[in-house]
């Protein structure tokens, strides 16, 4: 593997191949994205129910003037094809329309929700990966022994525990009983949010030189990250264990051990490198799941993220908001897949040549 990668990197032909590969993948992503937009939009209009009535409530929906004004304002007086063409046209200009429940541009709403979820998911995937590599590798090395059995049982439990229940339990225990973390939300009520740079409070507080805000943000992040990580740790641990087991049986790993290399050198120099590609795929999928599947955890911790926004949008038949969320989730998955494919291509020249 090493011998085939090195020459390709050194030649202009190799770089050219990689560039073509990237362009091809990016083009495929754009087509997929259009498909996501179409499917999401159609799904929202197929859902039974009247979004205007859902938004206006009992009293106002009895007022024909208000109903007409709302239908016109949100373009709901147009046919579905007209609305879709209009939506696509606006989309090209970066306009995802106006939310019928918040009355604000969907782009603005998403610009607040996505970083909130992104921050939790980012730290959760880092934590998950760090723990899972240790546990998964340890279990693989101790295959069949007590350590392996414990890790497998624990990871099975981690996969089985309902996230919502665990969130309530963890909040009750670590906040109420032990007082180790602060309350719900992204920040305490008395903390002023930092000037927005990245949207990640922890980073923005650091950039603003605000240690009080930083530690408050960390304290609020701790539990959501912990709860979200449990499932991902379990998932990745099991996967890493399997991947490492496969590599452990490979000739080059055996050869490394036969040469007398130390355990850690074999693990980091050969085994984990060999198992990196499939693990990379699984990490990408897990990260996408974290980003798009945080509804219940966000509800428990009053976290104003994408999950909360998506839930409220769906509940209120907020079609453009739902489509916007669908688009974001689609983009996230496409970007993750693109990055993984690029890394695959970079790590393994056989991929980009195929």
């Amino acid at each position, binding site marked *: 593997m090493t011998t085939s990668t090195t020459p390709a990197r050194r030649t202009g032909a190799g770089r050219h191949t990689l560039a073509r590969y990237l362009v091809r993948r990016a083009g495929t992503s754009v087509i997929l994205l259009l498909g996501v937009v179409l499917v999401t939009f159609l799904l929202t209009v197929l*859902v*039974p*129910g*009247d979004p205007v*009535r*859902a938004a*206006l*409530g*009992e*009293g*106002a*929906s*009895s*007022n024909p*003037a*208000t109903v*007409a*004004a*709302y239908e016109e304002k949100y373009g709901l007086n147009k046919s579905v094809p007209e609305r879709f063409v209009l939506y696509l046209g606006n989309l090209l200009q970066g306009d995802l329309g106006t939310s019928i429940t*918040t*009355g604000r541009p969907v782009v603005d709403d998403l610009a*607040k*929700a996505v970083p909130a979820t992104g921050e939790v998911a980012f730290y959760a995937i880092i934590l998950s990966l760090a723990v899972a590599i240790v546990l998964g590798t340890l279990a693989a090395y101790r295959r069949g022994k007590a350590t392996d059995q414990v890790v497998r049982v624990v990871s099975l439990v981690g996969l089985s525990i309902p996230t919502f229940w665990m969130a*309530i339990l963890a*909040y*009750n225990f670590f*906040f*109420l009983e032990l*007082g180790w973390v*602060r*309350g*719900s*939300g*992204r920040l*305490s*009520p*008395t*903390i*002023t949010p*930092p*000037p927005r740079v990245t949207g990640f409070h922890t980073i923005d*507080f*650091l950039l*603003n*030189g*605000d*240690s*009080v*805000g*930083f*530690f408050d943000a960390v304290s609020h992040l701790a539990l959501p990250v912990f709860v979200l990580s449990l499932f991902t740790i379990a998932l990745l641990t099991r996967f890493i264990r399997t991947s490492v087991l496969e590599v452990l049986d490979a000739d080059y790993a055996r050869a490394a051990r036969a040469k007398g290399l130390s355990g850690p050198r074999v693990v980091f120099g050969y085994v984990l490198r060999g198992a990196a590609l499939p693990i990379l795929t699984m990490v990408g999928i897990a990260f996408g799941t974290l980003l798009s599947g945080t509804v219940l955890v966000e*509800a*428990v911790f*009053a976290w*104003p993220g994408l999950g*909360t*926004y998506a839930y409220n949008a769906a*509940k*209120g*038949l907020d079609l453009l908001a739902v489509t916007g969320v669908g688009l974001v989730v689609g983009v996230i998955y496409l970007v993750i897949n693109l990055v993984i494919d690029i890394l695959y291509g970079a790590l393994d020249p056989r991929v980009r040549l195929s």
Partner: protein
Amino acid sequence: MARPHTRAAAALVAVSALALAGCSGGNSANTDADGGDSASGTLVVDTAFSLETGDPGRNYVPTGNMVLHAVYDTLLTLEGDDTTPQPALATMEQNDDATEFTFTLDEDRVFSDGSPVTADDVVFSLERVAGMTDSKANFLMAGITVEKVDDATVVLKTEKPSLQLPAIVTNPSLSILNAEEVEANGGATDTADAAQTFLDGASAGSGPYLLDSLDLTTQVVLVENPEYNGPTPAAYDKIVVRNVTESATQLINLKGGDSHIAVDLNGDQVEGLGDGFTVDSVPSAETIFLLINQNAEVGPATASPKFAEAVRYALDYDKILELAGAGAEQATGVIPPMFAGALADGADQDLDRAQAALAESGYAGETVKLQFPNDNPVGGVEFTPVAERVQDQLKAAGINVELAPAPFATEIDPYVNGTEAFSMWYWGPDYADSSSFLPFGPGEKVGLRAGWDAAASADIAALVDAARNATSVEERTEAFRAYATAMQQSGPFVPLIVPGNNIAADDTVSGLTYNPTWTLDLTALSPTQ
């Protein structure tokens, strides 16, 4: 050996820099990061947001009412849990026909910029809502005209008697705004109005608090209005109203000291709070009821009034109430207990009468589908277990029921369009007045959803008119009672539960009172002495 030392040194530098930087950051080191406490003058309230704007004229949702009631004054107001309108910015007199209502302003009152509240401000504020047909609150001004008499006097006129008008003007949507300031920021009395953006970030009212910041997804921050000169000055320097959708989280926050008040706890949760907390547990203004469609095309089995009678007397209301928790009561009729005309007693189970009525109804054992929203608990009452209990009880009485739950957003259409034969829904008042329950009458909004037109019950339709057009309070109360009684005897609705409203606070807060319009009166809250 050098590399570990280098890393340690770098880490030390980073941590030191961070600690030093904290002194110059946005939040000072002595900021109360535990959520504030009464000593700092900050009150934290957790509630599940239904918040759309800081513009009173465009607001018509519960959390909006709660917040804006503290920032803006209305002509009249409600005190505590009393539903009788009281003077606020003005006193009121009405003519004998109850068609002209004269409001005389308290000329001493000022807005947050120090300018006086005048008749021009009242006319602008009310005409703005009347002219903004794209506002949810627009319907409140239907049939009402506003005239300025002099700088301190305004007359509101209606074509028909409207004893509900005093209740209508207590709604925060009809708050009085600083006309000059709002007009300077895009305000207008028609659909050209563009003041919402301004009002989402600033206050133009005369209430005890100012809008400091408004985030529709996380929190609203109110601060004391230094110019306030009304009867209930701000008791807190700052009030933070946070969006916490899960009642379980609200409970943990309250118990853990992260908040001072939890607004949306259910009956079971408040019962376990214990010492150190105050709970205001009262019946709400909502009613959960069964709808029995009288249109034979929609519900062949349900269309007979005798079928409705059979259902009414087949149910064991005490057993159903067990599912509702603290504060809830059996619904005695279509009007909840806090409003004039409400009945003292509800229906009682009478299986013999139910059997007799069922036999007369022509019901032949067919299965009737019970439709209801299953994702929208009201006052902590989940509809699914209530529907299951109704199903069991009706089965025992010989009526076969199939449950047909669906999400609110999809179920609302057939309900509103009157295509549900048998369903379970809820109703709350548009404003704190008995007239908000007249839509259950024949030919009225909810009546028509039950396939019940005016011709189907001319007697009750006449009672609706009598209640609506009454010109004295006594006459009106009696008319509402007669209407509620007749509805209980022969209407196509079976009121089940008035869910409880459970607001809990730690013992640092006093003044906790439920109000049907703004749920919790933030202006009435103060630190416990």
